[in-house]
């Protein structure tokens, strides 16, 4: 499962990191890790309503998904994409507001947490039904082309479980029929909730789906930041330059429960020994220090800055009021005169 077609043969030079955006990416990973640990503790403390779903172990892939997107691009993040959302420009305060139920979050308490969007940087508010985001991203790209926009690309993510939905199939196929600049990054974290790969699909390699739709396919070790930047960044570039749709399949392990309510006791011990089961944040931090791309003091300072920002966001959000039912605008249509209330 692990051979990688376009791999960055991570050259760990003593002088500089293996990718020009390596340290920037590492900082997003670090921020995400610290932030999600904060979310988890808030959740354990009963301060969060609804679920908490973290991307622990997937920070390298997710960061790479968000990092190369530009103004005018389309991003469809999924439930493990805190890192990518941040790297693509969503402020920490908005996430925090959503989790803490502030009325000032982008979903205003109407929808929660991982479903949030951030239109300011082209981030779509996902619905739960896996695969449904794919055609929406494709449609946005079709529209941009019709409007005469140039140089844009669309990227969305999916899990190995979500790849088995009909929506994913129809969406992947229509993307290549419409020849839009599209990138799908699939993270095979080896579990769909509690379900292992063998009950999810039976092809030798998920990347074989690429050829089935006329995509270019790439495999990558999702725990190796340099490779993720190279492969995902490369895919984004190829799509942007007019290449066919791109499928990147990353191998890694979900290092948390499906959600924070789940102890993941179903994950067998052996799998944790797999090379792609390592913690990408720790691994990256180690490389960064060993190679002196960052000194311990700076790293310490980064952590301090990140924690401060998070504390500030939490304080702010906690001070803000939640929505109030009696004051809510109960109106599912934007065209008010067509609202039809009977029997409520």
């Amino acid at each position, binding site marked *: 499962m692990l051979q990688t077609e376009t791999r960055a043969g991570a050259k760990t030079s003593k002088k500089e990191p293996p990718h020009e955006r390596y340290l920037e990416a590492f900082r997003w990973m670090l921020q995400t890790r610290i932030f999600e640990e904060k979310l988890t503790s808030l959740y354990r403390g009963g301060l969060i309503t609804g679920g908490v779903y973290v991307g622990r172990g997937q920070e390298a892939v997710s960061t790479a998904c968000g990092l190369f997107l530009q103004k005018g691009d*389309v991003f469809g993040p999924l439930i493990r994409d805190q890192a990518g959302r941040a790297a693509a420009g969503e402020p920490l305060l908005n996430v925090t507001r959503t989790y803490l139920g502030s009325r000032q979050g*982008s*979903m205003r308490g*109407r*929808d929660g947490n991982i*479903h949030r*969007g951030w*239109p300011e940087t082209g981030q*779509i*508010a996902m*619905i*739960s*039904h896996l695969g*449904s985001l*794919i*055609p*929406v*991203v*494709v*449609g*946005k*790209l*079709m*529209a*941009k082309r*019709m*409007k005469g926009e140039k140089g844009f690309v669309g990227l969305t993510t999916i899990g190995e479980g979500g790849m088995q939905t*009909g*929506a994913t199939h*129809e*969406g992947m*196929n*229509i993307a290549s*029929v*419409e020849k839009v600049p599209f990138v799908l990054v699939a993270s095979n974290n080896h579990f769909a909730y509690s379900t292992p790969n063998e009950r999810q699909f039976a092809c030798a390699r998920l990347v074989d789906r690429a050829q089935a739709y006329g995509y270019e396919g790439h495999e990558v070790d999702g725990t190796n930041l340099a490779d993720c930047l190279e492969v995902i960044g490369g895919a984004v570039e190829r799509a942007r330059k007019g290449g066919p749709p791109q499928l990147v399949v990353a191998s890694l392990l979900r290092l948390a429960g499906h959600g924070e309510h789940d102890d993941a006791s179903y994950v067998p011990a052996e799998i944790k020994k797999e090379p792609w089961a390592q913690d990408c944040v720790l691994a990256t931090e180690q490389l960064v220090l060993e190679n002196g791309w960052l000194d311990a003091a700076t790293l310490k300072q980064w952590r301090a800055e990140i924690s401060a920002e998070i504390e500030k966001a939490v304080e702010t959000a906690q001070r803000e009021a939640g929505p109030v039912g009696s004051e809510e605008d109960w*109106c*599912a*249509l*934007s*065209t008010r*005169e*067509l*609202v*039809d209330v*009977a*029997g409520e």
Partner: protein
Amino acid sequence: MSVTYLEAIREAQAHLLREDDRVYLYGQDIAGKFGGAFKATKGLAEKFPGRVLNTPISEDAMVGTAIGAAMEGMRPIVEMQFADFSSIALNQILNNAGTQYWRTQQPCPITVRLPSGGTKGSGPFHSQSMEAIYSHYPGLVVMTPATVEDAYTMLIDAVAIDDPVIYCEHKYLYYHLKADALPKEKLPVGKARIVRPGRDLSIVTNSAMVHEALAVAQQLSGQGIEIEVVDLRTVKPLDTDTVLASVARTGRLLCVGETFPWGGVTAEVIARVSTEGFHLLDAAPARLNSKDTPIPYHPNLWETHRPNAKTIAAKARQILAE
């Protein structure tokens, strides 16, 4: 010169493509010389290059892409080859398009055309009327034009509306229904129409059943019975006021629909009249729907499955006898 219901739908789309760059058509077999399973887009692909696009057999993705395009400011019109196949797109319609505005405050102006309703020999999967299912969920406007004029103006309205619109066009009316010309004016969206004034009984209905009801009204009129026929036009929103006003005049209500009975349009209308206009009723309201079985293929069965002038007249007499 005369215009059929089907031509009105084609003309409305031609008008929209001409007047509004944001509009494009997306569906199976709608492009090329072919112009759609029912020819509702015939000639449009040639006239509007790149704006009438054939799709793979992927209803979920068809609507999904339309939602994305609408977020970018476009006004896609998606044609389902038959309403019955929209079951495949139902998740995108109900859970994505229908929740978009409420969740994000970003409107989702897509129009989904559903060639609906029964015709001879079409069977269980090419005959369905799905307006009840789409009306049950929040966030959608559901139209069921019953006349050539409405077919034209309501499709133009549908695209103008900033919210998702399910436009149910009745296949039985495609060729049967003719008007002298395209309409010059229109009723507001969401307003029902009194198709025929009456005194003794209000028949509230929609889509093809409007014409069955009219036939009954004409027939009984000869026998001194004056039936008022109300065409709902849109079933969501549902124009309760016009319906109540009609019942206030007649004191009697019969709701006729082509959908299946349980929770159909007729159930909703009766629920509204009995809750909001109970004291207007001089007799028990009644409803008539298609039978609670799949829609049969054989004409003998099909004609018995749906309400028709004969069964409606019988029911009307029964109510008037009370």
